[in-house]
């Protein structure tokens, strides 16, 4: 068989060699390179114009994952405005780290409450950071708008490190001396996620939530729905924050629960199981999103109502909403809304202020800068 195989291999090699690996790889790499550099240029010009107009020398870059919901756009706008009020000396920039959110926001996702299509252009943090560096702001804050220090936050950290290491394509390097000075002057700050510190942030958030929802907790269960993190070797293992937050909340009132969409052993059925073992088997359950904004998860996975959100043959299906699930489990589920939408955490002023305090109290990034010319 081996000999035969060799003969056959030789036969096809002779016949076919020429066209086999014809490639357009180089052309594609060239286009990719040009697209990257042209996008740097567009961002650089936008930021340069902003800096020229404002004459400010401090930049705050807010990094959200992104959304495609108009109520979320409003929440982001309000957050940016709150930051502008809190940091009057700074130009505040806002970005989405999700490519797909940028694409869809730009194409006009959803409508506002009057039914008008809303198109929004959002920036990408890596390009915006390049532009902020190119404009040579003397102090830069990068604030993560993530809830837990998980995988998305790790991507924010990576992009700041890349920035400080001048990690750009060869023709678009920043002034390395400027980056060195930024580091020496301790002028590059990384603002941490909402629940970064289990000892300070978690109790602070628990207190804020209780301030808002203590009335509900006195009438029934208040269940928060977080996202959950892929706790793998390569990402920060941040899911524990949900458990810590539940403990902190239950220390205030045992009627608080914190579940997630994606965290192993902390799905809606696990929340139900904990409620039942605590003796709460019927009555009201108020559902709130533990996410920075109320988007798909809040509207569908949590608050979705009707037959599209309930499959009786598979009650624990991820497609069954929390609202339908708890209603079918003898509870009376309630989704408090504002202007017909559930609220995200950025829309709760007390919580938003914790993020702002993270920016204000951010530590300068140590050892982030490494010269791209190490031999010098």
């Amino acid at each position, binding site marked *: 068989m081996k000999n035969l195989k060799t003969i056959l291999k030789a036969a096809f090699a002779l016949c076919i060699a020429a*066209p086999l690996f014809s490639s357009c790889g180089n052309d*594609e790499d060239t286009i990719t390179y040009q697209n990257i550099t042209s996008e740097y240029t567009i961002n650089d010009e936008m930021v340069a114009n902003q800096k020229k107009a404002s004459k400010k020398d401090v930049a705050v870059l807010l990094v959200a994952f992104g959304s495609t*919901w108009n109520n979320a756009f409003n929440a982001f706008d309000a957050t940016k405005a709150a930051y502008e009020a809190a940091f009057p000396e700074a130009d505040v920039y806002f970005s989405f780290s999700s*490519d797909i959110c940028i694409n869809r926001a730009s194409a006009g996702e959803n409508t506002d409450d009057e039914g008008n299509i809303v198109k929004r252009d959002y920036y990408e943090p890596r390009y915006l950071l390049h532009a902020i560096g190119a404009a040579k702001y003397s102090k830069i804050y990068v604030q993560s708008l993530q809830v837990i220090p998980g995988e998305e936050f790790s991507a924010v950290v990576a992009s700041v490190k890349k920035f400080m290491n001048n990690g750009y394509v060869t023709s678009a390097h920043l002034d390395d001396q400027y980056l060195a000075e930024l580091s020496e002057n301790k002028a590059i700050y990384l603002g941490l996620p909402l629940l970064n510190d289990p000892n300070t942030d978690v109790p602070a958030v628990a207190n804020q939530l209780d301030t808002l929802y203590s009335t509900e907790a006195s009438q029934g269960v208040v269940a928060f729905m977080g996202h959950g993190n*892929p706790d793998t070797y390569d990402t920060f293992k941040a899911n524990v924050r949900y458990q810590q937050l539940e403990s902190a909340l239950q220390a205030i009132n045992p009627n608080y629960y914190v579940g997630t969409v994606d965290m192993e052993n902390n799905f809606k059925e696990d929340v139900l199981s904990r409620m039942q073992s605590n003796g709460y088997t019927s009555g009201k359950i108020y559902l709130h999103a533990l996410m920075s904004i109320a988007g*798909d998860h809040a509207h569908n996975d949590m608050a979705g109502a009707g037959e599209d959100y309930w499959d009786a043959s598979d009650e624990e299906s991820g497609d069954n909403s929390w609202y339908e699930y708890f209603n079918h489990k003898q509870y009376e589920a309630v989704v408090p809304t504002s202007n017909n939408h559930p609220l995200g955490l950025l829309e709760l002023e007390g919580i938003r202020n914790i993020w702002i305090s993270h920016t204000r109290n951010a530590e300068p990034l140590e050892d982030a800068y490494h010269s791209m010319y190490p031999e010098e």
Partner: protein
Amino acid sequence: MTLHRTLHAAAATAIGILSPLLLPVSASALAGEMPYADGMPNDTLREVVVTATGTQHLLRDVPVQTEVITRSQLEAFGGRSIEDILSGLTSSFAFSQGDMGSQMQLGGLGNSYILILIDGKRIHGDVGGENDLGVIDPHNIERIEIVKGAQSALYGSDAMAGVINIITKKRTDKGFFAENTTRYGMHNDLRQHNSVILSSGKFASQTNFQMQRSDGWQNTSEEFAEGMVLTDSKKKTSNAFRNWQIAERLTYKPSGRTELYAEGSYYKKNICRPRNGTHPSCDVYTYDLRYNNASASAGAKIYLADESAGTQRSYISLDADWDKHAYYYDYTAGTYESILLKGEEFGQLDGEWYPVLMKPGQSRLQSDQQRVMTQLKGIFYLPAQNTLNAGAEYRYDYLRAPERTENGSADDWTAAVYIQDEFDRLEWLNLTAGLRLVENVNFGVRLTPKASAMFSAGDFRFRLGWSQGFKTPTVKELHYRYLHVMGSTSFFNIGNTSLNPQTSNYYSANIEYRGRRFTASVTGYLNKLDNMIALVNVPVGEIPAGITSAYLGDGSGAVQARMYKNMDDARTCGLDVTLSYKVTKELTLSSAYSYLDTEANLYDVSKDKMTAVTIDGTAHHKWSASATYNHSFGKLYKLGVGLSTRGSSTRYYQNNGNGKPFQIWRINTTHNFGRAGKPLAYRLEVGVDNIFNYVDRTMHPYHLGTNTSGTTVHGTFSITFNYGKRLQKHKTSTKVKTNYEES
């Protein structure tokens, strides 16, 4: 005679009973009697098939049950596409239209289990488990042969559902031949086929050019997305597309014993998606899709005896093929893509996933599948009525997908040797047994046996078959990974290098009566699959590190990670019945019915247990039926009328609802002009598909029973010019070339 009369009466009764459901009957696998220009009747009694054994057999005497769609059926039907033809002229297939191509099912199993051959050669390339069947020119088909189950040792044991062999039109006589066929229908649906053949005897050239286009259609503007029912979705039920293909085949016969050929083709398809939508999560697309295919092949066939030896000439052939199927995004609006940067010019970003804004007019390769195959085979007519069929095959698959594989590319090779013997010494018994030994680079060696027996008694045939299948995971199942955005739901599909090969055991039993006016066939089959590979939901954490954040779906919405995994097992079983009755010389009734039952045991990760489910997309009952009438008015004009129907019961799906049952009716008329033997002949077809305007308006993204757009009218004009040695037009399939001819 008494028996025949009884059978005719039985046939009339049987078709009569089926009539409320089926009548007037369509084109089933059998019959379909259209006169040709020269007035000779076709007859399935004289139909020759090759797929099952690799040797020519009269259909009635083929040892392995074979379903045939004849040239005359194709012409009477006037099909738009191969999907149209297969679903209209058999009851075995079910189709769903995807963005990228056709999701096809045969006996409950999908594309990857179906081997589609064009003249015995595998078609190449799939995207998202869908095959682009646009490469098959519907007007260049001589006949279609369908063999179910992994019954053939010749074509690979991976055809667990079956083999579809598209036999293209060929002409072997000297002279010049040119043909143009243009079909136009509603939705601006244009299909054009052009063929030019030049033959000097030793040397022949055949050039084919085809083009197809359609504006697509929309059955409903309702779409469930973002947790609400949108009423102004622009998503189409079938997307607009255009394609064209050019193919050249050169053949040279230096002697009566030797044939050489070389051929090449180029194909391009653009799939255009709506740009006027207002809901980017479901009906706004920022890029169109494009395929570029190319192929080249060469081969030789050497007969071991002169032509004087007749049709039973042993031969050896060697073929080498190269195929390429490349898939691109063509951007129509600015789109951030997460691209893996590779190259020194990217500096520190070399090796990183980076967001890159792709601009309108730019393109990006998604996958490039290339394949090289060489095949050495021989057919030897041995003493004592043994026919030995032996061969060796080597296949190399190469996948280049910069953003969709871990290392940018992946490859795989498979080698196989096979041997098959047909023993036909006894008049009442034909035994065929085959062995195929497969060696795969990753999965070692496996031997798969196949055996079939046919008992003959007068016009009756009884067939028994058993075959084992063996299918190693494809390069894509092992290595490919990509984000699949389906409306407002995003899936991240992940290849799995820990997969095991799939195996199957297929059992079939058939009884057939094939008389001069009446034919009937009943086939029962059971297909048991082990280690079946399917995409199943897995935790998001299984998405490869480094690309999770780039691909976490549409923002606040989650992405569902899915990975190819070996399921425990699955089985499909069914019953196929075909009937055909030639009422008069001019009128033929035919019908086909398929019963199918499927069950797969799937491992439910979230519940950590096995669950038994119906295989997605299967329906218990499918049927088709037709009545065809032909009449000559003088020597210059012949009329053909075909009334047909097809239908299906509910199609079952695990997600997004079941497909509704449907039944659709169609009429097609054919008008042949021209005197037999003259160089010029004309043909006109006019037809109405879906006469009663059935439309499934189920909202997106729920499943449709059928994606037909409602009533459509189509017309076809064909002109042929035939200069040179007078040809027996369209007689290839009826030439009796074997000793299997009835006595």
